[in-house]
């Protein structure tokens, strides 16, 4: 457990000291959201209507942008070999890296999302539900992404392939996430959507580290 938390804090520290990565995905997220009102026009009713989906897609793309960093840097400087051959089980290594990725590149998005939601003219209830859905749903994005990242680590054209592998698997989370926020905007019950998302997240928590660990072992063979 101690090794596990050490690995998490190491990854978080590395990401924070590099700095650029954190602000990069954050500013990407903000710019994508800003593009939508410019593209579809500034009518507030339309923005309220598309707001949940836009924010979810923005978060999803920003997450996708940083996925390859989960393993790539450690693979290049060789520390991934040490981590995998070390005393910590590979599944735990994957899980630690996923947690570090989520904290450094997804959590900042969730903090900014309510402010962006205000600019998209979303009601306060909707913003509250949006934050909750992002908190429940985005760990799944990191978990599923870790499988794609592990499969494409060390590959030459990994980035494009990564998005092709991962995006189809993101669709259920996107659907339920956006549907929950829309339901709350329409003053409907949001619990079923939240429960389904939580179910998907828990399922991914079980399956994805195993699959990613298998893929990592394969990449390091």
């Amino acid at each position, binding site marked *: 457990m101690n090794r596990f938390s050490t690995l998490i804090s190491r990854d978080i520290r590395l990401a924070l000291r590099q700095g650029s990565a954190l602000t990069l995905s954050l500013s990407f997220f903000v710019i994508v959201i800003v593009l939508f009102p410019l593209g579809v026009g500034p009518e507030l009713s339309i923005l309220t209507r598309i707001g949940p989906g836009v924010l979810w897609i923005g978060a999803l793309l920003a997450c996708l942008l940083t996925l390859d960093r989960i393993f790539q840097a450690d693979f290049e400087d060789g520390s991934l070999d040490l981590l995998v051959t070390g005393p910590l089980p590979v599944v735990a290594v994957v899980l630690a890296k996923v947690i570090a990725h989520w904290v450094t590149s997804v959590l900042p998005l969730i903090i900014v999302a309510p402010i962006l939601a205000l600019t998209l003219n979303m009601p306060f209830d909707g913003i509250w539900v949006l934050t909750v859905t992002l908190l429940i749903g985005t760990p799944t994005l990191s978990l599923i992404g870790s499988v794609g990242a592990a499969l494409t680590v060390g*590959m030459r054209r990994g980035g494009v392939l990564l998005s092709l*592998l991962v995006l*189809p698997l993101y669709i259920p989370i996107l659907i339920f996430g956006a549907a929950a926020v829309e339901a709350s905007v329409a003053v409907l019950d949001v619990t079923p959507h939240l429960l389904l998302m939580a179910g998907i997240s828990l399922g991914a928590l079980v399956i994805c580290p195993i*699959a990613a660990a298998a893929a990592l072992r394969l990449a390091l063979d």
Partner: protein
Amino acid sequence: MAIDLHKYANPRRFLKIASAIYPWSAGLTVILLLSGLYMGLFMAPPDYQQGDTVRIMFVHVPASWMALSIYTMMAVSSAVGLIWKHPVADLSAKAAAPIGACFTFLALVTGSLWGQPMWGTYWVWDARLTSMLVLLFLYLGYMAIWEGFDDPSKASKAAAILVLVGVINVPIIKFSVDWWNTLHQPASVATMEGPKIHGSILTPLLIMGAAYMALFVTLLIIRVKAEIMQRRLRILQISELRNR
């Protein structure tokens, strides 16, 4: 079970058996496809509401069956390849992927052509259609990951992991029409209470299903044979270079 599998995992024995099956499956494909199409397109009665457009069903429904079955078959043979390291299992999964993608595409295209006169639109974003589209992307991703690796043994393992993660989508597609209220109609052939379709339509539908299955077996044999030959050729080329 395991012993039997090991016996058939030998590529040479596989080639021998496949060559024996091949003329039968090819002949069966032609017979079933011709009779199924004739019965479906000319003999089956037109629907009292949909008229003759209902005949799209005989192309559409078996194609979607195949799309799901082929993905399941790929998952099973990838698991076999991953666990027992059978070379033919990986190759058959690889060979099945483009065929499955074609059936998925066929199901989507015929479905949208059927949707236009019936639902008034080519496409709706309901659960069944969206998850079928996701299935197509899964097939494409699977095919892309084979291209991404230089080493075929690594590629086969990576592709197997991907296909096993994606297999979660199969039950979602199968039961999407029961779980959600969709425009797409719920299951009507393989239900607990037996088929809900009249025999005059069910028979050609099942014949078409069998025809697609025979077509799949025929194409799969051709493709797996080609894969095995390609590997042998590669080995020969390498040993040729070594001897030089």
